[in-house]
């Protein structure tokens, strides 16, 4: 396996206070899982909003790689390529 590709994490507005206000974070990761591990080590407050104590993605949060939900790919084992954008988005809800 070669060097990990550089990808971009897009941080939605409500989560920016947990990473110093950054809207984007660049990091090197082969997979979404590796990207989450990087966040756990380097951006723990942001990570805790995305994953619970067991390491599972929060139930009502969707993770996209570019325009695809990882649920429709390989989950958090989805491979990443240089230039990919990973986005965390709250699931659609409403009516109350």
């Amino acid at each position, binding site marked *: 396996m070669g060097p990990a590709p550089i990808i971009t994490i897009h941080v939605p507005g*409500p*989560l920016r206070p947990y990473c110093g206000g950054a809207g984007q974070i660049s990091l090197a990761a082969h997979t979404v899982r590796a990207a989450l591990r990087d966040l756990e080590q380097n951006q723990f407050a942001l990570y*805790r*909003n*995305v994953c*619970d*104590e*067991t*390491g*599972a993605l*929060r*139930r*009502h*949060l969707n993770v996209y790689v570019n325009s695809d939900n990882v649920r429709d790919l390989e989950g958090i084992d989805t491979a990443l390529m240089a230039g990919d954008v990973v986005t965390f988005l*709250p*699931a659609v*809800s409403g009516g*109350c």
Partner: protein
Amino acid sequence: MADRIILTIGTRKGVFVAEAAKGRRSFALRGPFGPGVPVYSTLIDTRGTPRLYASSCNPFFGMKVLCSKDMGKSFKETKSAPAFPKDDGRALANIWSLEAGAAKKELWCGVEPASLFRSHDGGDSWDMVPGISNHEHARKWHPGAGGMCMHTIVRDGDRVHLGISTGGHYLSEDGGETFQASNKGVGAGFAPDPYPEFGQCVHKIARHDEAPGRLYMQNHGGWANWTGPGGPRPDIGVLRSDDYGHSWRSIAKGLPSDFGFPIVVHPHDADTVYVVPLEPTTRSCPGSAPAVWRSENGGASWNRLAKGFPRKESFFTVLRDAMDIDRLKTPALYFGTTTGQLWIGREGGEHWDCLFDSLPPIHNVKVAVV
């Protein structure tokens, strides 16, 4: 500064703060803080400079604890929220209870799945309390309709009473190091054994400083007509203990229903206790006519307090933490409803007025005189 009445109102859409002069004629409302996020628990910590706390239970991004140091004009997240150890296997689903501890800045926090956490720095860091969180019964408790929650923490020196739904009443007599199920006389309607060792659906527990050993409990009643295994269980819903929670007896006789959620004790009279009886199926007041019921003799008899309420066609529920009483000489009660109304019961509940009628559904109401 003259005495002020401060109310914290935890709702489905954030926490509100209402403030009034001690005449309580009108209340000014602030908020919502943590807008759009459910708040199940609040605490007005009056030790030293008052601090207001609220659990902000974000279904998307997880649990937070909010703190206000300016009487509810602004709130900030504490540096961390309770969290299970990484290898525990459980994940925090909700924060149901915040209580002041003995030491300055010490806080206790009951969560879902039912566990207890403790902070020594005003909520900036938290440690799980293993004596109950890893109790041998903990993995055998089951969730009630509201989840498997530790919703009640009542402290009395080294005694700590916990209410767990559905786990029952647990008692520590060593400051929270160890806990024992203490449910003698506490019935369960949803199990073949009417009086199991643990697993009851306790709804709320209250005590009074001047009545050592006495506790009141609102338990999950409504099983008087059960005809299945174990037979009917009348009057298991409203209980009293006179031995520090080691045993309990019914005081439900005279109430129109033994089902309900909150139970509140008068601040100056340990014999005066309030409940809101609900029909167990609709979880609204019997006959759709709201009423608070008061006993002035420790539960031996009850009186209906309904002056000022609608006489019919009201179907709200008052949840377990949604009623409180202030500590003025002639205290007022306050309760919030699932339909977003906040009521005040002046003169100990003799007369009721609606302070706010269109808030979001209300989970929690706390009051303090500051």
